[in-house]
């Protein structure tokens, strides 16, 4: 069945709400408006205002309320509209959600799912175009997911809700309209990275909104006889080092694509693990394709130039292969 990423996410939420009375959805405009990205459209009428709760514009407040509900035995799904606004809720996420199990000596846990859109590419200017997945992936105590396919959009929420600790899900805003076939076996884990395209000459490692760009680049390179493997990290914390190392040990070369800024990026962490684990298998220095280190521009051509693009990925691969 062909569906959109948005529809896959909607189905996942619907399943969760329908199958577990402890689950409820909370966030800005999720109810009457149907969600900023229309993921929860129709839920308000179907499940009622108790379970589909519109919140005031106060991220710190409603994420805190979600943590409280989780402590109290509920299974809240909190939608922080975008990662840009999540900065207002950092204290609740980092100091409370991530640490309460530790601070309570294991007496309590916070089974909370926080969803947020992320990324640039839609001319929303610098304050609404952040890719800060790496900030969250830095924090012990939370699991960070980046569904980048239809199947992961459909399948990741259930295991995230089953996790006894907080899970942050990043949905790249550019992916919502992506359409594809929903496989029959869309159920998935939230542990492992996935090889989205097998290849032999180089590992192209990426996640989230950059995955379709990496796959486009790989397809273009294939037309020139260059066989590239594409690895989707899927789980940004904890990173699946084993899959990364297995792939790079086999291909001997790596290009990491990350919409975050280069300095202190997730790409830097992936590169560090490659060097730690695969140094003697490397046939060329790993290379990163990241966003330019500038505030993301508003103007369309400049925004495009600031972000990783298939052409930049192709050029980086050719540089590493020296072809």
């Amino acid at each position: 069945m062909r569906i959109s990423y948005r529809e896959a996410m909607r189905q996942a939420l619907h399943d969760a709400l329908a199958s577990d009375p402890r689950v409820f959805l909370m966030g800005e405009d999720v109810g009457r408006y149907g969600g900023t990205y229309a993921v929860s459209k129709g839920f308000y009428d179907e499940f009622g205002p108790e379970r589909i709760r519109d919140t005031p514009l106060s991220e710190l407040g409603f994420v805190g309320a979600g943590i409280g509900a989780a402590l109290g035995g509920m299974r809240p799904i909190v939608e922080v509209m975008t990662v840009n606004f999540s900065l207002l809720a950092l204290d609740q996420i980092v100091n409370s959600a991530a640490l309460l199990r530790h601070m309570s000596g294991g007496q309590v846990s916070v089974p909370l799912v926080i969803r947020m859109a992320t990324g640039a590419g839609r001319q929303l200017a610098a304050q609404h175009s952040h890719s800060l997945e790496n900030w969250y992936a830095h924090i012990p105590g939370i699991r960070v997911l980046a569904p980048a396919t239809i199947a992961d959009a459909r399948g990741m929420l259930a295991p995230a809700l089953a996790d006894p600790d907080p899970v942050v899900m990043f949905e790249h805003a550019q992916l919502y309209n992506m359409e594809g076939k929903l496989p029959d076996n869309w159920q998935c884990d939230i542990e492992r990275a996935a090889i989205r395209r097998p290849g032999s000459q180089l590992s192209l490692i990426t996640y989230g909104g950059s995955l379709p760009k990496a796959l486009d680049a790989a397809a273009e390179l294939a037309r020139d006889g260059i066989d590239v493997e594409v690895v989707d990290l899927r789980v940004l914390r904890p990173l699946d080092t084993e899959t990364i190392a297995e792939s790079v040990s086999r291909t001997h070369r790596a290009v990491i694509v990350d919409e975050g800024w280069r300095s202190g990026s997730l790409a830097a962490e992936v590169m560090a693990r490659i060097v730690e684990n695969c140094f003697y298998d490397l046939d060329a220095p790993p290379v990163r394709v990241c966003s330019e280190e500038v505030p993301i521009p508003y103007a369309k051509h400049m925004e495009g130039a600031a972000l990783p693009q298939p052409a930049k990925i192709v050029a980086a691969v050719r540089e590493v292969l020296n072809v």
Partner: protein
Amino acid sequence: MFDFTLPSLGADMDEGKLIEWKVKPGDAVSKGQVVAIVDTSKAAVDVEIWQDGVVHELLIEPGERIPVGTVLATLLEPGEEAPPQGAARGGRQAGARAPAAPGAGAAETARLRISPAARKRAEALGVDLARLNGSGPGGAVTLADVEVAVQPGAPKAPEAAPAAHPAADRNAEMRRAIAAAMSRSKREIPHYYLSETIPMARAQNWLTQANEGRPITERLLMAVVQLKAVAAALAQYPEMNGFFRDGRFEPVQAAHIGVAISLRQGGLIAPALHDVGSKPLDQLMRELADLVKRTRAGSLRSSEMSDPTITVTNLGEQGVETVMGVIYPPQVALVGFGRIMERPWVEDGALVALPTVVASLAADHRVSDGHRGALFLAELRERLLRPEEL
């Protein structure tokens, strides 16, 4: 001691690959001697040296790709003593490999660039990494280089490198080089174009007579007559001959005419026929035949690549009437000849059929104006009307 650097062998060259050294440390060299062969995007070029001396140290190994301006070797002035061991001068490109130079003092060995995977594999296979040519980024030896080296029939030494340049690559590189030079020309040079129809009956008759009794191999071609006429006209109009560099025109006394030669596999090269103005036609004919042959065989000398002061292109054989050319920077003019064909012509009030050719001039308006260009073409016409004086 002085440095021998990789010269630019044309406006479209920014790097080259050293194919072979023709000298070794200790050899005495003289001005004009070919000392190395360098592969450019267009051809393998014999690179000459422009100063007498004795080769002290070769700094670049065959197979290395190097930017224009890289120091390739150091030489001692005639009579100069070699410096004590260990006093080798710097100036090498970072990461470049120092070759083992027997008898030339202690050649410092820079660390070879070898990927960790290649190093591990080479150890397992017992391959000597110092013997390999790197194909990876920055010339690093890669896994594939090690594996190729142990295959039966693998090239044993870096000297086999030129074969690793497939024709398709060469063509693509040449296309890129031409694209870069021509784009630069159209971007930077304000061209103006003039043309003039020149009666060729006298020149043809003269040529027929001159060739009478000559064996086929020594016959003159009209192309060489045209080249000589261009050189003669240039002597009167020096602003068509030279280079425009760093915002000003540098005239050149001698007419080193770049002759546009198309290659069978596509693309073209316009190497210099040196000092056309001062050489007799017979000599020019021999040199032109040799130049065409060597161009198509891909063995040109560096001075032929970098010296042309003007280009002449002749597309008459292809059957066109008129050529409107693109100047090859940093030159300032290009002369084009079309096909020699019979046209209706009015002479002394009567209509006759005469062989004529259209000569065109594309010139750099920063250096000359249309008025002078027109006089130049008129002079060219007069020269071709008096072929016996050439």
